[in-house]
């Protein structure tokens, strides 16, 4: 090789990583080789810290077609169809340029679905930001919303839901996670592999520039003051080109001319040529001069690791090259043949006939894991788990309720989701703001079924109790899906944490994963993919984000017409509460907003009964007995009831006497966030039937009150004294308008 080499000590790899490299190739590395290895060894690409922990998650199940490892999870949903879904973080780019960061996040997650061969049909998004009233938070929220919206709307993929949390720990390090799902015929599954030597490697789409160079290592670094002026790392999304790429790719797959398919995300071409070769047991060889560059003076290493957006990598049989180019030409998309598949097991890059890279593919794709230390975090010692708030006086309750309904984490997210097209594709039957999960019908694919999707997280509970917090997120996500009538079938996760080299942070990571794993096992839900984002740590102020797993659970409805939303439907319908309320007030909105306290017991998941409760709820809805259903989560019983009332424009009358609970305290009955609880409304004649369904397994289910025509929220205690009496319209006005007022400068 004639390319300049680089000495061992100048390479930014750990000792173990260098050992692995030099053991395999007994010579100096060229500069492009070193750059490729650095990027592929970054936390972002290699999962080096998390890889030893993630196997705790269950990944097997009868429906699983592709589990972790592929670009997206794929599950069998019957009728010859597969659901493809994935969730990913775009935290660091979004913190610096919220518009382009969020937009390119959407662009990236769409590619993950597309490169399995599925048409992407729905998007989800989750934001973790500082307090809503803070100007920096408003700036971020305004632009991430616009970024998600502009990109998703322009490519014509409907938004199916999302999740927002405001908490001071995200003030500097916001977390922006995005998800996408698609549906395909099972037999059209495309895999990211290059199986046959001689096949051509084609790069489709945008030109390659300096944008996102070192993006991968960049994404694995903490935010420092320097990052504010970090250049070249911010990428510009081009949804219009992406739309054409989606159509061209799907047309090529339909035409049967695609042998392998890979998106270009982190580590760009480096990742494509190495992962397709390694997965196919082959090798790849490309000619670098064939790449279309946006800047003529780019160095070879820059070209190889650039993360320019809107590019796709195809493996095509020589005889199909003409056919695929006709498809690309129809959409006026640029493309070029980069090289071909070999049988050497190596990734070879030539530049003007000189070999500048010659590395075993597995060296790039399978770097060694890092051995991280974990230690019990000191802050947890300070928490008093036995704490219970002082019981509020009756005359304080109305105001407490008002405050909770107007708090950052309870108010309506309408200002955000109105900016997203929720209708395009004609799939959405339960839309944002109507139900606990988004429901999409599959009539386009000739099926009566429906899929339900939800994003969930609870960073505050994960902070106070990483194990039960993690388990709780999983339970909550499955409950969301069940509440629209869908059986939860699989999940994918995004684990957002601080610096993994800090043992106390790493301990929380391990515990959250254990909690998630135990809940997934109890619920019988396989994990089919995931993403880990570390280094969400603000070095300047030395704060890490709260441990923030975000979970994407997908559910299946055999008959989509059976789905329910959570609006009250008619006066005089009965309200039934499923599940037991426990004195679990730790991490609740009540503890946080009213008592400003971090103490108390975080809700635990009842692993033994979790699956039964979920399937009973699904069966109740399937049988048509429930007119509405809502799971009880943030804000507890009071908030869940009030959301149902606001959406249905009807009031309620409740008596707390009938709330199945381990305590008689009204504040706990009203605001505890115990998992495994649901509210179901039903016609009078169906109430006994519903209660009987749950009684079979000794799950508490109790009639607690009625829907009223009167637009009032009324709750009595066991002595029939009125505890809460609030006008629906007043509560609704504040709840519905506060975010808009904050964001539009009216506050």
């Amino acid at each position, binding site marked *: 090789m004639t390319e300049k080499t680089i000495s061992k000590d100048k390479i930014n790899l750990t000792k173990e990583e260098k050992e692995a490299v030099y053991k395999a190739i007994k010579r100096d590395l060229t500069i492009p080789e070193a750059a490729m290895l650095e990027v592929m060894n970054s936390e972002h690409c290699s999962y080096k810290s998390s890889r030893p922990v993630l196997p705790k998650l269950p990944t097997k199940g009868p429906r699983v077609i592709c589990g972790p490892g592929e670009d997206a999870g794929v599950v069998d949903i019957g009728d010859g169809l597969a659901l493809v879904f994935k969730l990913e973080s775009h935290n660091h780019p979004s913190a610096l340029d919220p518009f382009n960061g969020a937009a390119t996040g959407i662009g990236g997650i769409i590619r993950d679905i597309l490169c399995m061969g599925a048409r992407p049909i729905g998007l989800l998004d989750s934001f973790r930001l500082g307090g809503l009233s803070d100007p920096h938070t408003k700036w971020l929220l305004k632009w991430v919303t616009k970024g998600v919206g502009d990109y998703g709307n322009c490519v014509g993929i409907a938004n199916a839901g999302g999740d927002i949390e405001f908490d001071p720990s995200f003030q500097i390090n916001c977390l922006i996670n995005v998800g996408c799902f698609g549906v395909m015929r099972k037999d059209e599954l495309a895999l990211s592999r290059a199986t046959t030597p001689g096949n051509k490697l084609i790069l489709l789409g945008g030109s390659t520039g300096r944008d996102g160079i070192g993006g991968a290592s960049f994404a694995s670094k903490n935010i420092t003051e320097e990052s504010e002026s970090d250049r070249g790392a911010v990428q510009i999304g081009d949804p219009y080109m992406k739309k*054409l790429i989606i159509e061209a790719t799907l047309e090529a797959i339909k035409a049967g001319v695609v042998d392998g398919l890979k998106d270009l995300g982190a580590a760009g071409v480096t990742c494509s040529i190495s992962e397709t070769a390694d997965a196919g047991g082959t090798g790849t060889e490309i000619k670098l001069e064939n790449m279309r560059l946006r800047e003529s003076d780019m160095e070879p290493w820059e070209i190889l690791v650039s993360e320019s957006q809107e590019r796709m990598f195809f493996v095509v049989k020589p005889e199909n090259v003409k056919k695929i180019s006709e498809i690309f030409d129809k959409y006026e998309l640029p493309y070029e043949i980069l090289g071909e598949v070999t049988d050497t097991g190596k990734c070879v890059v030539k530049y003007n006939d000189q070999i500048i890279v010659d590395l075993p593919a597995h060296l790039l794709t399978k770097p060694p894991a890092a051995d991280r230390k974990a230690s019990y975090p000191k802050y947890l010692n300070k928490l008093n788990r036995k704490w219970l708030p002082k019981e509020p006086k009756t005359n304080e309750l109305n105001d407490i309720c008002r405050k909770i309904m107007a708090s950052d984490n309870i108010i309506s997210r309408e200002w955000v989701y109105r900016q997203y097209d929720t209708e*395009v594709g*004609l799939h959405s039957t339960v839309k944002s703001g109507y139900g606990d999960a988004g429901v999409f019908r599959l009539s386009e694919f000739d099926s009566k079924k429906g899929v339900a999707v939800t994003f969930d997280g609870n960073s505050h509970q994960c902070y106070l109790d990483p194990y039960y917090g993690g388990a709780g997120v999983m339970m909550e996500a499955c409950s969301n899906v069940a509440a629209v009538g869908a059986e939860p079938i699989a999940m994918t996760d995004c684990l957002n944490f601080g610096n993994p080299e800090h043992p106390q942070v790493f301990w929380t990571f391990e515990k959250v994963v254990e909690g998630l794993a135990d809940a997934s096992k109890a619920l019988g839900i396989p994990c089919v993919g995931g993403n880990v984002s570390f280094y969400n740590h603000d070095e300047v102020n030395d704060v890490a984000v709260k441990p923030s797993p975000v979970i994407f659970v997908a559910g299946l409805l055999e008959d989509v017409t059976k789905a329910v939303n959570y609006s009250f439907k008619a006066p005089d319908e009965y309200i039934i509460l499923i599940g037991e309320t426990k004195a679990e007030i730790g991490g609740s909105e009540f503890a946080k907003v009213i008592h400003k306290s971090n103490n108390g017991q975080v809700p635990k998941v009842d692993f033994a009964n979790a699956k039964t409760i979920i399937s009973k709820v699904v069966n109740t809805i399937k049988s048509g007995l429930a007119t509405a259903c809502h799971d009880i989560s943030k804000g507890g019983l009071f908030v869940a009831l009030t959301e149902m009332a606001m959406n249905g424009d009807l009031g309620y009358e409740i008596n707390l006497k009938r709330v199945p609970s381990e305590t008689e305290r009204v504040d706990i009955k009203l605001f505890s966030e115990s998992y495994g609880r649901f509210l179901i409304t039903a016609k009078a004649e169906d109430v006994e039937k519903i209660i009987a369904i749950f009684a079979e397994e000794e799950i508490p289910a109790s009639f607690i009150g009625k829907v009223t025509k009167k637009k009032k929220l009324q709750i009595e205690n066991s002595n029939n004294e009125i505890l809460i009496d609030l006008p629906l319209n007043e509560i609704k006005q504040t709840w519905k308008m506060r975010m808009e007022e904050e964001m539009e400068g009216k506050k």
Partner: protein
Amino acid sequence: MPMRVIVIQFSGSTCDRDLVSAMKDVMGWEVDLVWYNNALKHLEGYDAIFLPGGFTYGDHLRAGIIAAYTPVMKKVKNLANEGLPVLGICNGFQILVESGLLPGALIGNDTLRFSCKWTNLRIETTRSAATNIANKGDIWRVPVAHGEGRYFLDEKGLKDLNENDQVVWRYVNDNGETTKVANPNGSIENIAGICNLEGNVVGLMPHPERATEAIISPWGSEHGKFFFQSLENYFGGR
């Protein structure tokens, strides 16, 4: 005989397949979905031409402007002038305006935000090819989803538009009144859709193709069907 229509798929259209689904699966029409460059040679022989919603050319410069300059639009203009119904929905409406088939301009929403919501549309005239089975004053529930839908016209143009009975729909509240709150984009006089003098070229920002099936409507309504049924009626109940 069912209606035979063509949907032109532009570079960046996103609602083309939805329109096909509503007209084919719900209405039972014969529908051809044709890529714009291929449509050039295949525009003849249809009962109507549809320009679907979406983000042609990424909405760059101005929504609809670049698509308005594609060669196929010259042909569409000729056919429209001969009286063939041409219907533009959302981005299709923007293309009709930018190509001069309909007067006015569609500019950025006054909220400065994209807005996706269900709206009430009041029928202002039954003269157009898309409203002739309705009654004046009827209200249809149809969703909008756009960032540049604020209809604008100068004073003189607006006077003519009203006098010539070219305003087809206005955004109204549940009581049928044209209030500010009912208007999702700040369009002048709450205008949601208009037609040409003859009534055969119709453009509107809301999406009737998203409102033809109860299951995807939060209200269980199917008012979008009236739009397509009107067109059938325009052809004498074919």
